[in-house]
């Protein structure tokens, strides 16, 4: 495990200091690749864009996923129905990830399903063109793919809350909103954190959705790694990889600060 997991990552850090020329790479240590990354707008821009898209996707998956999880976990009392609803959320997961991403193209395109429906109802005159091949389409695609990872853990934590706790609060005269704010939400927080970790790890390392739905206009850190490896620029790809690792480590540590997972689970 250590051999196949830690060694590749260590190698990546090492290679990021190698000397890269146009056609060859040598193991003389240098900081050149690192300087290129921070000096170039394209590459540094990719870092900020990755962070921006990550934050948006995280916020949207939480906003969309929490009510769904709340319904499944708290309002559906029957265990079987609960399971069926959760499975219904997971089923899309069973189609190839890449095909699911591609399925958004006919949805969002200029002559896509959404535009056709909106025009039929007379809501818009002209088809909306910004839907596909923009950052928006990348975000929509990612949200649909990853929102399930938010719903699952939250619903799990919500279903574990003891009903008598809520009854007690109600008997003491707490309103529904107060009960949610003071009891239900704090108790579901570990689920939120687990969901957020899943979503963050996957979105930060993502490149296929961006490649498929942005027409190669939106470049994330992952996309840069893929193109750099494609042109055999190993050292540079390694620099991007190390930066991505650092970002991810920071994010996960910050999330774990919020709750003590080992204690809660």
């Amino acid at each position, binding site marked *: *495990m250590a051999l*196949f*997991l*830690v*060694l*590749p*990552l*260590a*190698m*990546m850090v090492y*290679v990021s200091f190698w000397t890269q020329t146009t056609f060859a790479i040598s193991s003389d240590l240098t900081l050149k690749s690192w300087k290129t990354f921070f000096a170039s707008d394209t590459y540094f821009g990719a870092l900020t864009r990755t962070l921006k898209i990550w934050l948006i996707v995280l916020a949207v998956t939480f906003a*969309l996923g929490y*009510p*769904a999880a709340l*319904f499944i976990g708290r*309002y559906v009392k029957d265990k079987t129905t609960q399971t069926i*609803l959760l499975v*219904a*959320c997971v089923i*899309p997961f*069973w*189609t*190839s*990830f*890449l*095909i*699911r991403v*591609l*399925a*958004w*193209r*006919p*949805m969002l395109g200029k*002559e*896509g*399903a959404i535009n*056709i429906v909106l025009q039929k109802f007379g809501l818009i005159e002209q088809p909306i063109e910004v839907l596909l091949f923009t950052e928006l389409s990348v975000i929509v695609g990612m949200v*649909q793919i990853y*929102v*399930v990872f938010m719903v699952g853990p939250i619903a799990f934590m919500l279903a574990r809350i003891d009903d008598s706790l809520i009854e007690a609060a109600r008997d003491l005269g707490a309103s*529904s909103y107060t009960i949610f704010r003071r009891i239900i939400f704090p108790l579901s927080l570990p689920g939120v954190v687990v969901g957020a*970790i899943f979503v963050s*790890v*996957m979105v*930060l*390392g993502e*490149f*296929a959705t961006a*490649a*498929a739905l942005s027409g190669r206009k939106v470049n994330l850190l*992952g996309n840069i*790694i*893929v193109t750099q*490896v494609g042109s055999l620029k*190993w050292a540079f*790809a390694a620099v991007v*990889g190390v930066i*991505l*690792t650092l970002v*991810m480590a920071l994010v996960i540590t910050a999330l774990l600060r919020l709750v003590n997972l080992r204690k809660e689970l």
Partner: protein
Amino acid sequence: MNNNSTIYATLAVYLSLFLIFLYGPFVVMGILSFQQGPEGGPQFPIIEWSTFWYKHILGYAPPTRIAPLPIGDALLRSITLSIATMIVSTVLGTLTAQAFRRNFKGAGIIFYLVVLGMMVPGVLLGLGTSLLANQFGIDRNWWSTAFVLHVVYTFPFAFLVMLAIFNRFDPKIEEAAWALGVDPLTTFRKITFPVIFPGVLSAMLFAFTLSYDEFPRTLFTGGADVTMPLAIYGTFAVEIHPNLFAFGVLTTLFSFSLLTVYGLLMAASLRRSRSSISGIQEDIE
């Protein structure tokens, strides 16, 4: 209480909208897979309903300018790879979880190390491994380097599933068998295995599907022979045709049949354990 039922209704409506959002693209994909071929593109409107693209995938369509999906070999490779990964990951996962039943020195570190395998993004691990392979002059192939990474990726899932099973497993029933003089192998076969079987099945299911659909790791370490996801990724660069959607529908059906088999096996094992319990009860009475 009235307030409560309003919330209930609102959330129920919300959940249905949410499910529509999850399934919308599939419906569109399903409809478009029946687009007329070979001129019809992957967009609305449907020129004429036909099964042309399904025939195109299966190789029955008359030759056109659109190259057929390179699925034959790729599919075979994908399935071989995921079956191999499934076996290795499930066995390793079961053994490791078995080891974790006792608290040993360094258990905490090893636990995090194993779980790290499913947390580290495929892009990073793929990149690192290909750098390593370059350095030591190892050829990158789908059955060597990519296979190793698939195991690193799926093994933690199998491990966690088995750990959850073993946590609920009562060691007394094994001890009882040993006390009665049953040899360890028979104990495992007759006592341990039937109890952990549902877990093993779930671990296999996880490992198979994750490996079958795994993409970023394979992209970097898979070498020249592509697996199924790589073949699909290859079509991103060029124009896409409805044959991809038809293929998507077919793979979805395939996954469903796999899930059904899993469900049936699970139900059968539950029924068996129930009937054997009632059998024991009858014996006692």
